[in-house]
């Protein structure tokens, strides 16, 4: 197995003997991974490999066994971490609701009980507009969701996560369904975040993109198959085809 050692950097996120469960089913088994600030990490593997489950567990939305440490503090299942932002797959959301982009970004502040309520409305709005500006989508703020393209919608969702200024950003298939220019724009955004020190972890199917743009790739197949530089890890996808076939749902 290829693995990557983080040299000279304190890990911001550390998973030890980490298994993820969806109900009674073990979706990801016994991971041992360390992540440093500023890494741009791709989770790869076929459908059912456990990419989304792993992201959900780190975001506090799926149960896990083992240990997860975020900024040296132990995390517990079901407790959200204010410093971890999560961007789910676009297809699972209610795009039919008559919301403006700014309304969606504003929902990113709903969990902060110090900010909710009408007294803090202007403060929340400022945070939301700043987040939209940070993804270069200031002009989209007053547009209804139904009028946004896939790429624009993805940037709005990223802005929603950035509103709480996360140090770890998790994204589930952020390029899915996007054309090349829109995908490139989202990628540039993720690179910029990682250069600014945010740990970015994205579940990715686009292997050529992973090889061309990401600093690290983790190959999953119900457990860890490989972890390292994308140009070394991606070829193992083909050499481990037998293992991958078993978990292809």
């Amino acid at each position, binding site marked *: 197995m290829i693995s990557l050692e983080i040299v000279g950097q304190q890990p911001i996120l550390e998973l030890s003997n980490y298994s993820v469960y969806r109900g009674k089913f073990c979706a990801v088994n016994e991971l041992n991974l360390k992540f440093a600030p500023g890494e741009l990490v791709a989770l790869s593997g076929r459908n059912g490999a456990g990419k989304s489950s792993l992201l959900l567990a780190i975001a506090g939305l799926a149960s896990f066994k083992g240990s997860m440490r975020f900024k040296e503090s132990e995390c517990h299942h079901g407790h959200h971490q204010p410093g*971890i932002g999560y961007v789910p797959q676009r297809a*699972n959301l209610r795009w039919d*609701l*008559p*919301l*403006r982009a700014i*309304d969606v970004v*504003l*929902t990113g502040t709903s969990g902060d009980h110090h900010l909710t309520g009408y007294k803090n409305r202007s403060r929340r709005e400022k945070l939301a507009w700043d987040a939209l500006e940070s993804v270069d989508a200031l002009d989209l703020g007053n547009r209804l969701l139904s009028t946004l393209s896939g790429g624009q919608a993805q940037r709005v969702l990223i802005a929603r996560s950035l509103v709480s200024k996360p140090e770890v950003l998790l994204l589930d298939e952020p390029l899915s369904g996007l054309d090349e220019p829109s995908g490139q724009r989202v990628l540039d955004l993720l690179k910029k975040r990682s250069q600014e020190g945010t740990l970015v972890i994205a579940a990715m199917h686009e292997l050529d993109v992973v090889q061309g743009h990401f600093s690290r790739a983790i190959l999953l197949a119900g457990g860890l198959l490989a972890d390292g530089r994308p140009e070394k890890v991606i070829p193992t996808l083909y050499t481990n085809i037998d293992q991958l076939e078993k978990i292809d749902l």
Partner: protein
Amino acid sequence: MSLYSFFIEPFAYEFMRNALFISILAGTVAPLTGYWALSRRMVYLTDAMSHSVLPGVIIASMLGISILSGALVTALVLAILVSAMVRKGNSSEDGAVGVASQSLFALGVVLASRSTDSKSLSHYLFGNPLSATYSDIFQLGLTALLIISLMLWAHPRLLAVAFDPEHASAIGVKVGRADAILILALAGTTVIGLGSVGVLMTISLSVGPAVITRIFSIDISRARFIAMGIGIFSSSVGVLFSYHLAIPVGPAVALTCSIMIAISFIVRSASSRSTNSRLQVSV
């Protein structure tokens, strides 16, 4: 008939003024909670709840206690029954809601037929705001104020949960608690509806105005208040038509709402056609 005799004359009578007040209360609150029910895909649950609170309301009325508490207890019973059927009985959620709500409704009908209460079953089902007293208006007014305050306070969380419950949970919003607040508000709305349009018509006043705002793609920040305006207008017009045509208030309000939906749909379709033809000409 002059405008004066159509619009003003009916309200020379106290019972008509009371009917108008109580219908306006329902027209204010129901569209607000209904808007969230539509956004959270809980319209069927709202309809089921409006039926299922009947036994609680009748028992409370027989015991001489607040009908709001009776309605809330029955809403809780409905939630427990649905949850038990889904978890223990492997039933689908809509199947469980259908069975539990209709059972409670049937129980309510039986209780009403045995009740010595002056209010007849048809009052509960179709509403009779004409019999509303100042005390009813005061109590339902307080309930309305409570529900509106609750909805405004919970707005950020309700919005987060309606759009993306998973993300809402990830940022620390208690999704179950937000849904419970909405269900409580819907139960309270049913009680207010009970005093005006009746349990069978409450759903029209809850969801109709929200549907109109959807037809015109009005964004959520304005839509809730526009829906409340439409609700107040429908209630007022319904009360007027009920007086002039000598028909029950509940169905009159519900039909006014339905006619407004039909007109909105026609206006929207005509406007889309006209936009499309302009685009074709310019191409």
